[in-house]
């Protein structure tokens, strides 16, 4: 909860605006607020360069540790194993299987979480009815649900997708709910005095105002979905990155485990970037610090 809250709060803009600094107000020329900062493209290059340096450094440390006798495969070993796994199609199939599970679970989780979060935030009665269940399930790690899910749902895709769904749902629903609760009262009053009724206020004030929270919830939910994936694939899976790593463990096959880990990391990162982009597009109106 606290992690969620902090992320939510960090996204929010400070509600009352800063008092305008100067009197140069109505002359019109000051609207652009072009503060003397570094140009955005310059900053982007700089941060991209730093990112690259950081990645290179990480790999260097890994390599050093591996050469120093730690039980780690070296980067070339991992790369060549990745090549093998790509060539024989294993990696592709695993990625597709895992990605499918994550995407379905995550999409369902979000699709259910957003309306439920809205309803909880908007109607006090529903909040009181739903919240105990959500708080209850939040305390149970989705992984602990797996035995139950398997018994109830069998060993095919359903229990795997279900636990991923649950993880994504729980992360997203609380963030959405928080977003709705935190919508600035003044904005709702402003809409009311402009003649808006509940439905309009909901669609044109509450939804846009809580979009930043929803997107944060989705990002956290996506993280949870990936985190749950591997464990979900412990259960009678024939394919998937998690299954492959489990299998590799039996044969002490470290390079394959590394390929799996790195694949999951890259896929998660890519999906997070996509969400981040959507966030930039959808919530560019926010005043950021």
């Amino acid at each position, binding site marked *: 909860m606290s992690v969620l809250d902090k992320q939510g709060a960090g996204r929010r803009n400070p509600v009352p605006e800063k008092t305008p*600094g100067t009197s140069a107000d*109505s002359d*019109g020329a000051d609207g652009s607020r072009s503060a003397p900062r570094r140009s955005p493209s310059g900053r982007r290059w700089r941060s991209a360069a730093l990112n690259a340096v950081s990645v290179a450094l990480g790999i260097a440390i890994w390599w050093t540790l591996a050469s120093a006798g730690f039980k780690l495969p070296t980067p070339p070993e991992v790369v060549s194993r990745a090549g093998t796994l790509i060539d024989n199609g294993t990696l592709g199939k695993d990625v597709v299987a895992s990605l499918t599970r994550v995407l379905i679970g995550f999409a369902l989780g979000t699709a259910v979480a957003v309306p439920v979060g809205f309803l909880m935030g908007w109607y006090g009665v529903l909040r009181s009815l739903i919240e105990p269940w959500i708080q209850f399930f939040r305390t149970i790690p989705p992984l602990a649900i797996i035995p139950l899910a398997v018994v109830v749902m069998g060993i095919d895709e359903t229990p795997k997708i279900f636990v991923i769904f649950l993880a994504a749902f729980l992360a997203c629903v609380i963030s959405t709910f928080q977003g709705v609760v935190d919508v600035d009262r003044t*904005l709702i009053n402003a*809409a009311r005095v402009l003649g808006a009724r509940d439905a309009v206020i909901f669609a044109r004030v509450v939804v846009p105002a809580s979009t930043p929270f929803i997107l944060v919830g989705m990002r956290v939910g996506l993280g949870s979905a990936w985190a749950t994936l591997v464990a979900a694939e412990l259960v009678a899976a024939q394919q998937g990155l998690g299954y492959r790593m489990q299998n590799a463990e039996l044969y002490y096959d470290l390079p394959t485990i590394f390929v799996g880990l790195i694949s999951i990391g890259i896929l998660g990162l890519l999906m997070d970037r996509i969400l981040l982009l959507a966030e930039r597009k959808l919530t560019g109106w926010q005043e950021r610090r």
Partner: protein
Amino acid sequence: MTSSAAKISVQGVTKTFALGRTTFTALDDLSLDIADNEFVTVVGPSGCGKSTLLNVLAGLEEPTTGRALVDGVPVSGPGPERGVIFQQYALFPWLTVRQNVEFGLRTAGVPKAERRRRAEHFINLVGLEQFADALPKTLSGGMRQRCAIARAYAVGPSILLMDEPFGALDALTRVKLQEQLLDTWSKEKRTVLFITHDVDEAVFLANRVIVMAARPGRVYDVIDVRWDGPRDEEFRLSPEFAALRNRVWHSVYHQDGRTAAPQPSTTI
């Protein structure tokens, strides 16, 4: 007491809030009438219930007892004939200036072309034509408040309720916006109830200044402001202004008796 001709008539409004085990009386049996197209400012110490009065008139809060009438009809909930301007501007940050101004028109189902035309008119009126497609975050405080004023005007209210609208602005911007507001008001006459804690502002803008007292919130004094010329710097620096300012100042800062003058509740 009950003048049916009044645009706004507040009749014996009491508003209490529960504060733990005790109750807090924000407004105590308050009555006042405001005539059509009158510009009334309400000034008073904090906690005197001036914002509560405005919220009751806006329909955002219900009086505990008594009632508020607009055009002889009791207020029940917000309505488009009463525009409200908030201290925190309350612009929708995800909408541009134009979309903000059009918000109330869209809600009312005004067709697009007409919406555009009316929004344009009021955006020009407050001098934001260059910023019609800008997001609020790029505007200064004064520009945001002008946008909020245009947004309130666009719906076509006959009453404007303004809750310390310039309270968060610096002194220079504030003076400029006061003059612009009067300019806008002289072009588009409305009945205005303007809440402020600034004595100068109260005198400069008003036809009539209502001074409130706190604990419980009530009308303490009513001061007519008569000035035949335009409300400009000349007025602001005139001895008449200084005298009125003095009078209001004393009324606000030296409230000893229950009321300073016989409770006036009729229009001038």
